[in-house]
């Protein structure tokens, strides 16, 4: 059993939020933690608090020395995460002019269970995440309302290097593309168990390299759900149009959500388009995991970010509950746990 949310083997944790926290600026935390994490033997984790409804902030992760055991991660503090529904958790709502809100040049960087929105006036296409180094991972995040009041658009996630992955996430209402997959030729990026809803261009845009989509639900994206491209190894995706790539994928489906008009895109137990049609990723060769957007375990695997009929997030993810992260709220403390790494 393995959660999609994995933290460094040992790490230093700091808090983010209002003036009583360690940091009020993501970039200052980044600068303080841009060290050789491997030789130090410690990862760095920033835990966000809902001291305010949202934070207008950005970060340029400038290539700390990391590996699969020691890396940097940003997540909500225990009890501060979303419930799978936009507007319920720790949120970064950026309105600045940088093209890349979360500009990642760290290998192995992780963002867990954070909400993101973006408002910009630009003639180009800014993106919320730019994953520019290998093995960067976005897990359990809600990206929504990417609004460009200028002539351009807003993309959700731009996966630009080998082995980057987005898992268990909702990407909704980007004015551009939900996820752009753009690793170089010979490289692969991954999208597992995501729900991509109502984006202005398409859900997934394969641009180069290989894009592996598994259990991806794409619904009502304006131009199309998936573009044509190299989706070798993909399976069990579902689309509302005829574009879902891979084996055992389902096209022209109708999906039933718990309360779509109020942004609750958890699958209804009565859904017949995606429920129980996923491929089991418990032993996936690239990224093995077993929990959904809320940290609930997939029983019979579904397509999309949710295992229907489970209680929902309640502001805490599975790793938090298992590892007793409720006790980790102290700032600057050294933490360790015995969980394995997800890839």
């Amino acid at each position, binding site marked *: 059993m393995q959660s999609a949310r994995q933290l460094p083997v040992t790490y230093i944790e*700091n*808090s*983010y939020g*209002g*003036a*009583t*926290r*360690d*940091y*009020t*600026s*993501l*970039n*200052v*935390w*980044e*600068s*303080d933690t*841009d*060290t*050789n994490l*491997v*030789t130090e033997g410690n990862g760095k984790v920033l835990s966000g608090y809902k001291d305010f409804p949202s934070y*207008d*902030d*950005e970060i*340029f992760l*400038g*290539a*700390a*020395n990391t590996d699969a055991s020691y890396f940097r991660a940003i997540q909500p503090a225990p009890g501060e995460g979303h419930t799978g529904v936009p507007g319920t958790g720790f949120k970064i709502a950026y309105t*600045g*002019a*940088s093209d890349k809100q979360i500009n990642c*040049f760290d290998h192995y960087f992780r963002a867990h269970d954070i909400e993101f929105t973006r408002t910009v006036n630009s003639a180009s296409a800014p993106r919320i995440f730019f994953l*520019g180094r290998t093995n960067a991972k976005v897990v359990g995040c809600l990206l929504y309302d990417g609004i460009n009041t200028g002539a351009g658009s807003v993309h959700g996630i731009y996966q*630009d290097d080998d082995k980057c992955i987005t898992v268990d996430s909702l990407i909704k209402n980007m004015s551009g593309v939900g996820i752009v997959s753009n690793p170089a030729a010979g490289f692969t990026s991954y999208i597992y168990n995501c729900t991509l809803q109502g984006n202005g261009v398409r859900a997934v845009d394969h641009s180069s390299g290989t894009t592996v989509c598994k259990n991806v639900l794409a619904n009502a994206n304006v131009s199309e759900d998936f573009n044509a491209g190299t989706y070798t190894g993909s399976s069990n995706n579902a689309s509302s149009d005829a574009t879902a790539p891979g084996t055992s994928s389902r096209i022209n489906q109708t999906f039933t959500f718990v309360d779509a008009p109020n942004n609750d895109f958890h699958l209804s137990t009565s859904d017949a388009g995606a429920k129980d049609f996923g491929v089991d990723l418990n032993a996936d060769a690239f990224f093995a995991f077993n929990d959904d957007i809320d940290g609930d375990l997939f029983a019979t695997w579904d397509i999309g970010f949710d295992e229907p009929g489970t209680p929902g997030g309640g502001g805490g993810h599975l790793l938090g509950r298992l590892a007793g992260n409720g006790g980790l709220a102290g*700032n*600057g403390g050294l933490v360790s746990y015995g969980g394995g790494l997800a890839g």
Partner: protein
Amino acid sequence: MPQTFRRYGVWEVALSARDEPNNGVHERVQAGDIIAIRRQLGYVGRKERSSVVWILLTGLDDSDMYPLIHPVEEGNDVFFDKRRYCIPLTRLKQAFPSLDMARITDRQDAYQPFCLLDEDTGYMLTMHPPFHVQGLVYDKSMARWI
């Protein structure tokens, strides 16, 4: 009568107070490098009271202000220097002669020469008026002042 002046916003800017050692991958920030830029919040976190120096800047539009935290880039994906723009501390001392150069580089000293912080809450009680970017901010990539 035509109006010829422009009104710019005021920005909170975090400067690196000291040179940080190489992290094994690239050069980290150097003293005076611009680390963070944001619209005025009026408070800082506990660890932000000593690791950086907070200063107010003005003189650029939004679209020109945000690039001040960009790296020096080589090509599309490669960078070798953590930050492209800086305010050299020697230049800052010329603009603010009472700046204590020994204290600003002391890692243990929560020295904030441009703002008075409430020690309990982190709120900025008073701030030095904003400095203008022209002649103060240096572009390392182009080797010129902006």
